[in-house]
């Protein structure tokens, strides 16, 4: 990703060590990344992010609006982006479901924004105060039509802060909604969070077009990131619509144009997966079993992995920091080299289907699913590792 960065605006950076929960760290990360607009609707277990942003907004010079619901919240955020702001909102499953239509609009109109889903156990209203990872597929397939989204999953309050900044940077560069898939456990647990000095935080600024008026195009269908935008009031003529559009943004509803637009939307993400995907790997070389995990579950998995190693089992860890685009290339590389992939997750089996697809039958895949409401008992993951090593 060849992209211009600048140091963070010190006004938004509360530098120093903190003892903070994941939800608060998301708000701090957003402020550090330059987010100065937040429209939202409170919902457990994401409300603390909402509250933190509201509390800090006046001192940072940001705008905070509590809207009447999630539909209007996401819509206000889209408007604010085209008014020149970096925006974030936060919700959980039920609220995300309401936001989905306009997240699709943001993807189609290439509107950068960050949406945090602090996942709780579902379906429907489910168990508001209990943890889960059940919205993994919704983050990608929620909106109708073909969408390539970026989604990240933090495993700690520190990573909530770090990934909030990364989410903004990816979102600005690729002009795409970026979803942070965290969960009730990470959202509500307190740990040490170190916020670096502003000059050590790299921020991707909004790429605003500055050339002659007649040359401005709000869209470029080149399957790349880094395309410039404008904002209302700067004097450039532009049009934004959810309809299939040309480079000026005006509707051109033909099969040919749909091919051009959809190819661009998909390829700017999937075609740059090597630049986007971040994994954390440990002792994968020579492993019989690789545990593929993400978010809070990866910490429980590491406990199980440590116990398995004490038993002499060769087991590696692959933690997905990036959920979407999926780490397809890496799983294909490992398929056939490892006996078994073990995939624990706090859902009935979602990302495991992606692992299975990419393993292509060359390695066994064991799903360690869970209905949500609590984290795994490490013993259950350990048992799956034992089974997979045989």
């Amino acid at each position, binding site marked *: 990703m060849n992209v211009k960065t600048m140091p963070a605006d010190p006004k938004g950076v509360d530098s120093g060590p*903190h*003892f903070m929960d994941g939800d608060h760290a998301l708000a701090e990360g957003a402020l550090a990344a330059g987010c100065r607009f937040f429209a939202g609707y409170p919902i457990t277990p994401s409300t603390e992010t909402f509250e933190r942003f509201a509390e800090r907004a006046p001192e940072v010079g940001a705008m905070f609006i509590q809207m009447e619901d999630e539909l209007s919240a996401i819509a206000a955020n889209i408007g604010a982006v085209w008014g020149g702001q970096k925006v974030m909102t936060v919700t959980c499953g039920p609220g995300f479901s309401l936001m989905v239509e306009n997240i699709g609009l943001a993807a189609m109109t290439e509107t950068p924004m960050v949406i945090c889903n602090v996942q709780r156990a579902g379906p429907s209203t489910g168990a508001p105060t209990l943890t889960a990872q059940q919205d993994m597929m919704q983050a990608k397939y929620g909106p109708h039509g073909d969408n390539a989204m970026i989604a990240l999953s933090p495993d700690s309050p520190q990573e909530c802060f770090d990934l909030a900044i990364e989410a903004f940077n990816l979102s600005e560069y690729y002009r795409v909604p970026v979803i942070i898939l965290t969960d009730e456990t990470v959202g509500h*647990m307190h*740990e*040490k969070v170190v916020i670096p000095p502003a000059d050590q935080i790299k921020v991707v600024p909004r790429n605003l077009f500055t050339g002659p008026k007649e040359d401005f195009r709000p869209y470029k269908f080149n399957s790349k990131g880094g395309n410039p935008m404008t904002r209302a009031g700067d004097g450039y003529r532009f049009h934004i619509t959810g309809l299939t559009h040309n480079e000026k943004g005006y509707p051109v509803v033909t099969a040919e144009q749909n091919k051009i637009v959809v190819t661009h939307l998909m390829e700017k993400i999937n075609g740059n997966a090597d630049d986007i995907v971040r994994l954390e790997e440990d002792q994968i070389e020579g492993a019989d079993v690789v545990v593929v995990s993400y978010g809070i579950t990866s*910490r*429980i998995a590491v406990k199980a992995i440590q116990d398995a190693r004490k038993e002499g089992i060769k087991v590696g860890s692959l933690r997905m920091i990036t959920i979407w685009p999926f780490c397809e290339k890496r799983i294909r590389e490992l398929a056939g080299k490892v006996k078994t992939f073990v995939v624990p997750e706090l859902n009935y089996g979602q990302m495991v289907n992606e692992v299975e697809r990419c393993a292509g039958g060359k390695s066994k895949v064991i799903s360690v699913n869970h209905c949500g409401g609590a984290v795994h008992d490490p013993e259950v993951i350990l048992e799956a590792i034992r089974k997979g090593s045989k």
Partner: protein
Amino acid sequence: MSSQEIRFSGFGGQGIIRCALITGKALSLYDDKFATMTQSFGPEARGSACAAQLVVSDDRVLYPYITQPGILMALSQEAYDLYYPELPKNGVLIVEEDLVKLKSDHSDIQLRRVPATRFAEELGNRLFTNLVALGFLTAVTNVVTADAMKQALPGLVPDRFLKINIKAFEKGYEYGVEAMKANGGK
């Protein structure tokens, strides 16, 4: 890898969550430990049972929830009734002695009693009960240092009450040190 699990419990309004926040901040920011704090999270109201948990370790905490606390602080009868059975042999039980009626002599665990509410009232307000209890905990366990605890207070108690909270902490701490001496350091 040495790790320790602590449960703070009492009723809503006693500052139970604050106890865990202060201890967690002290450990992870000033005592060079890893600490992960979780709290009972639900539609609880002031006056009902309330608990917060802390996992403390020399290395990164992986499993964020406690499995068997070695230290239990119970500032209410309900909290004591609910949680004391989970203490292992030799575990440390800290109770508010005026609020908790013991159900056994607890000869197999280390029982530490403190009149935290009474001390807080002597300092002017029972709101300082949690700080008295924290000072006492600091003295009777070797989990966290008193210096770190005092350093952790700014930002977690209102500025204008910082001095009196430190005083409350010290009151509990001194009482704990004396209690340990009387116990022969056991």
